[in-house]
């Protein structure tokens, strides 16, 4: 009987920053990624299989929220020493690809509040710039699950975290949830915000000259919404 006593179910390779957690790298997970990476995969399959990964990511990230001891009485009249969920949460998606992760989030966290941030590259400065944000008013008192499927250079993710911090969210209450990350982007992102946690499904080889993740899966938002 294999039971782990660690608080999460994750593997943690030594070469990663300590705040980065990946899903267990099973053959099953690799098969899910193979489907969504394949350029011949239909949009329907892309939706279905990316949702499966997103659900696993959300399940994993929730393990980083605090719980408190809670004793309940079962229908058989026995007491059970369990745990209760503690602390309010909300999701924040980085538009547009981040929106794709909202359905998966709500399947696991029923009726969770979701804020939105639109960040685009400023044509003049070539830096990420905030275009729009709509966040829950009490966001400063919540744990924030920040959603963006692809982390390449980490530019827009860093901008989003800055905005959250401006709204009074402490860095250690932000959990960044991500499908595919490039090692370069991860190092930059985690170097800048060391107490934020990153939950990622897969860490790819790297970036090409156009800053696309290799092998990656192309443009997530494009494949999810437009193809």
């Amino acid at each position: 009987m294999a039971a782990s006593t660690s608080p999460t179910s994750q593997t943690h390779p030594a070469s990663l920053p300590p705040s980065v957690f990946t899903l267990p790298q099973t053959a099953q997970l690799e098969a899910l990624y193979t489907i969504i990476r394949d350029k011949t995969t239909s949009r329907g399959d892309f939706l279905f299989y990316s949702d499966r990964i997103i659900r696993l990511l959300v399940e994993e990230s929730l393990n980083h929220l605090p719980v408190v001891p809670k004793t309940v009485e079962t229908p058989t009249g026995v007491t059970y020493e369990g745990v209760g969920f503690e602390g309010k949460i909300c999701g924040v998606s980085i538009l547009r690809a981040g929106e794709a992760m909202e359905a998966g989030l709500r399947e696991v966290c029923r009726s969770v509040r979701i804020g939105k941030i639109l960040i685009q590259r400023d044509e003049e400065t070539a830096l990420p710039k905030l275009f729009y944000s709509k966040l829950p008013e009490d966001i400063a008192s919540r744990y924030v699950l920040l959603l963006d499927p692809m982390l390449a250079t980490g530019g827009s993710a860093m901008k989003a975290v800055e905005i959250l911090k401006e709204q009074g969210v402490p860095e250690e209450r932000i959990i960044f949830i991500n499908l595919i990350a490039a090692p370069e982007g991860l190092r930059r992102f985690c170097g800048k915000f060391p107490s934020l946690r990153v939950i990622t499904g897969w860490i790819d080889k790297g970036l090409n000259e156009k800053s696309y993740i290799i092998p990656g899966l192309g443009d997530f938002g494009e494949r999810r919404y437009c193809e």
Partner: protein
Amino acid sequence: MLGEDFHELLDDESQRNFSESLQSKKNTILKSHGRPPWYGEDGLPICDAFVIGIAGGSASGKTHVARQIVRSLGSVPTVVILSQDSFYKRLTPEEVALAHANRIDLDDPEAIDMPMFTACLTDLKGCRQSNIPVYSFAEHQRLDEVKYLYGAAIIITEGIHALHYPELRSLYDLKVFVQCDSDLMLARRIQRDVKERGRSVDGVIEQYLRYVKPAFDNFVLPTARYADIVVPGSNNSVAIDLITTHIRRQMTERATHFRRNMASKSIECCLSDGNPVSSNLILLPQTPQLKGIYTVLRDGKSNRQDFIFFVDRLATFLIEKAMEHLPYRPKTITTPINVDCTGKELDVKNVCGISIIRSGGPLTKGLERVLSDVAIGSLLVQSDARTGEPLLLHVMLPKCVRERHLAVDTWVFLLDGQIGTAAAAFMAIRTLLDHGVQQDHIIFVTFLVARNGGVTVLQRAFPKVKIVTGAVDEGLREAWLDHYNEQGEGQSEGDGRKVWIVEPGMGQIGDRYYL
């Protein structure tokens, strides 16, 4: 016996319907109550089905004898009457034309597909499923459809050549020959064919002389010497009584043997000392979220909405974890930015789910979230209110399990709410193995396992079956439910019922999810 001369019925529509309704009437399945366990503590079947072969001339009264036997047997789990007519060979187009012209001798033993007949009966006798061919007298051809049969305790084979082939004879536990005077058989035949099928007396006699009589003299009558008992074709109530007494005694002996074998399987004796079990019991990592979910589910005060939501969420997660135990193989693909990438893909021919009604139901929702188009079968196992014995009441299996050649390559997610005594799990796994599913292709997914319960026996009997669960509980206690509001087979209405309760457990998972 009505079938052998159906090739005379030509294209009249009403005749065709008539013949097909008769065809279906000849293969009969009778169920009186659920099927008690047919296997021992080691997981192996204890006895074969009881097989009776009934031969005799055309219109001698074989079907009548078969039905009389069933009637006087009274309460038996499942009886199948299997007609030889189902096993006519597949005909070539030329032969079909001849048959329509009434120039094919269907009374000849060669007209029967003996290897198939033997294979089907061997499977049924060995408690395995069989897919029986369907022959249409209207089309003079074996149809593409098949009739699925599984789980009969008694099989009665009837046909003029039922005792002709040694391969078949070796399968019978009891061989019966229905003896009837030739004149009487011809008289019945003329009467029946003229009255019921609008045929001329001349036509009936011509066919009788050309095919029926020679076949009877050369092939049918000589097989009477193989019979254990020769029964008169009419006024045969004494003979029927002798036969059923014999069958009943045989069945009782088997049952006694069975119960002796099962005695040590009673739950008290198999309570383990808490030593966990094999590496094939896979417990999910006990993360804070998982513990939190189980806390909601175990809490008797949780409302219905929360219970349903968290059951669904847990089911999805459990199935995702169970998916890790399927085989995968390498696969190379190209990404949209034209980079080649070696990943993996699922390496299974067939995969399906089978839910044990009722508390396996919530897990099917999780399965559908993970495998969108998966086939999901179901089994209903209830424990007999009097004996506590599990009874198999309903079997509905996906095609990839029903057909043996597919079942060997099929992976099955077997779904049930919890494993307490493991009686239902045991019966379900045995049912799958009977169908040819490989033991190491079965993954049992459940919310809860009682450590001291039947899981030990289950894993001893089926060591290769994997069990994926989110929690292992320490206790299993016998209890009495006062007003168990459930009706149906095996239940005595209004009375209380003895049950085994997992502790701390989640209560009655099915009730909390559905009611």
